[in-house]
């Protein structure tokens, strides 16, 4: 019990440090936030004048969830890249903490930050789309439960993505981008997964983003209850239970390799 309290306190170190860094780079944050707004607008406007309000919201939800996923993946991967650039990674790896504590701390920050930024973009959308975005019928409780459960799977994916910058800060970020693009392709972000070639569709069944999107869209467009989304939530939970240990195992292998060949040295 004592250990759990200690590890929780320690994982807060990563959240606090990242929020401190965020404050120091506030002007960049404003720029990135503006980009998120422009991106969601660009996608949503495709349907204005062509489809119904639900079609507009369908695309905007896709853009927001894609934005959330991108932020999450990038923040987890950046946490490692940044530390390699600054040279602090050796000190973090030398600290008497379990790797799980280190990585969960980084993932929790990524989720909190992703939710904050995505929430702000969502709040701004009605100003641009007017009656096309009706948030009044959304079931916020279902959305909150969906995001919470799906975060487990995204932590697992984030852990696997974090291995790339550990091995190479220069190329690692690009490799993380490849995972993101694959998720974008297979998860039905802007289209139904049924339009994918049949041989690709099985991949979408194992992507947590597929079920996250289905439930979030149902909650926002149809006021769906948690009970009605139990199937999706159960699948998300199962994927999370598989992906988290898998992510740790993959990261552990990467760390061992980095310590064998000397990849933890400052780079940049």
């Amino acid at each position: 019990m004592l250990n759990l309290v200690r590890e929780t306190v320690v994982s807060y170190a990563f959240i606090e440090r990242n929020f401190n860094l965020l404050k120091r780079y506030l002007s960049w944050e404003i720029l990135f936030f503006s980009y998120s707004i422009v991106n969601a607008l660009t996608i949503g406007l495709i349907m204005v004048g062509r489809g119904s309000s639900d079609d507009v919201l369908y695309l905007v939800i896709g853009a927001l969830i894609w934005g959330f996923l991108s932020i999450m993946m990038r923040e987890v991967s950046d946490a490692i890249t940044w530390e390699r650039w600054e040279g602090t990674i050796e000190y973090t790896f030398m600290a008497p903490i379990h790797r799980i504590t280190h990585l969960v701390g980084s993932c929790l920050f990524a989720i909190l930050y992703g939710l904050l930024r995505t929430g702000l973009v969502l709040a701004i959308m009605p100003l641009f789309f007017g009656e096309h975005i009706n948030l009044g019928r959304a079931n916020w409780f279902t959305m909150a439960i969906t995001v919470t459960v799906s975060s487990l799977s995204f932590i697992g994916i984030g852990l696997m993505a974090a291995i790339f910058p550990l091995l190479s800060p220069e190329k690692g970020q690009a490799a993380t981008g490849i995972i993101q693009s694959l998720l974008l392709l297979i998860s039905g972000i802007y289209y139904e997964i049924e339009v994918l070639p049949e041989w690709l569709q099985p991949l979408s069944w194992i992507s947590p983003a597929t079920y996250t999107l289905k439930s979030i869209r149902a909650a926002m467009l149809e006021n769906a209850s948690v009970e009605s989304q139990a199937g999706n939530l159960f699948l998300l939970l199962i994927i999370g239970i598989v992906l988290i240990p898998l992510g740790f195992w993959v990261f552990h292998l990467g760390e061992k390799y980095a310590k064998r060949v000397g990849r933890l040295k400052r780079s940049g």
Partner: protein
Amino acid sequence: MSIEEKEVEQPIHGLSVREVTKDFHRTKRTKLAENLHFYQRLRQFFKREKETIRAVDNISLEVGIGEIYGILGANGSGKSTLIRCISTLLLPDAGSIHVFGDNVVTESLKVRQVMNRVSVEASFFKRLSSTENLIYAARLYGISAEAAEKKAREILERLGFNAARMDEEMENLSRGMQQKVAIARALLTSPMLLLLDEPTTGLDPKSKRDVQAFIEDIRRERHAVIVLTTHDMAEAERLCDKIAIIDKGRFIAEGTVQELIARVPSLNGAPATLEDVFIALTGKDIGDEEE
């Protein structure tokens, strides 16, 4: 296993390094040969031969509690690789390292609790302040922000760091000030094993003196085990109880300053210095870089 039980098996040294070897492998690019067909040139271009560089070669050392052990060597001689092996950041290819009886590979979490390191590069989040960096580092060791700030202030003041600048971004501080913050980061956690990897390289004379005096204080007050790598002969002579000279990854001499000096005949009647010993044994100047 308790410390008493371990003592029965083997004498407990603060740090015990036995026959440690560490190799690195890198791709060797050979120059393309002339007069080859296109496909032969292509094959040669993509042919990657690996070459092995032995960074640490069969090194053994033992450091007792309250001792400062110095490692003298040119750039690239293997000092930092050895320090990284001790500090759990590199896995040795052969040999073993024990810190207070615990193996650094198999019991790394336990070892990391009693150890800290100061490297030649200060390595901080440059846009964060000293306080923010130190609180982050302290939290990783389970130390609260309040306790960390209080202790950091005390250490920094003793090092001659103006505490009023603790809230400035690190990138605005001089190299000497950053290095003092790095020392404070290591000492915040009260380590029993302190690895100082060229802590004074590049510092101005005043900062260098402050840091050296502080290292002496730590030895006196805490009886910690200290390993110091340096280029500075005077520093090694002033601080170290025992010194090893490292060249091409191997220890070529080890002993007290007097023992090392006794190995080299005096020049023109004047007693040999540590620098004479280094040049005589390695055939190079301390400032030289190894391949």
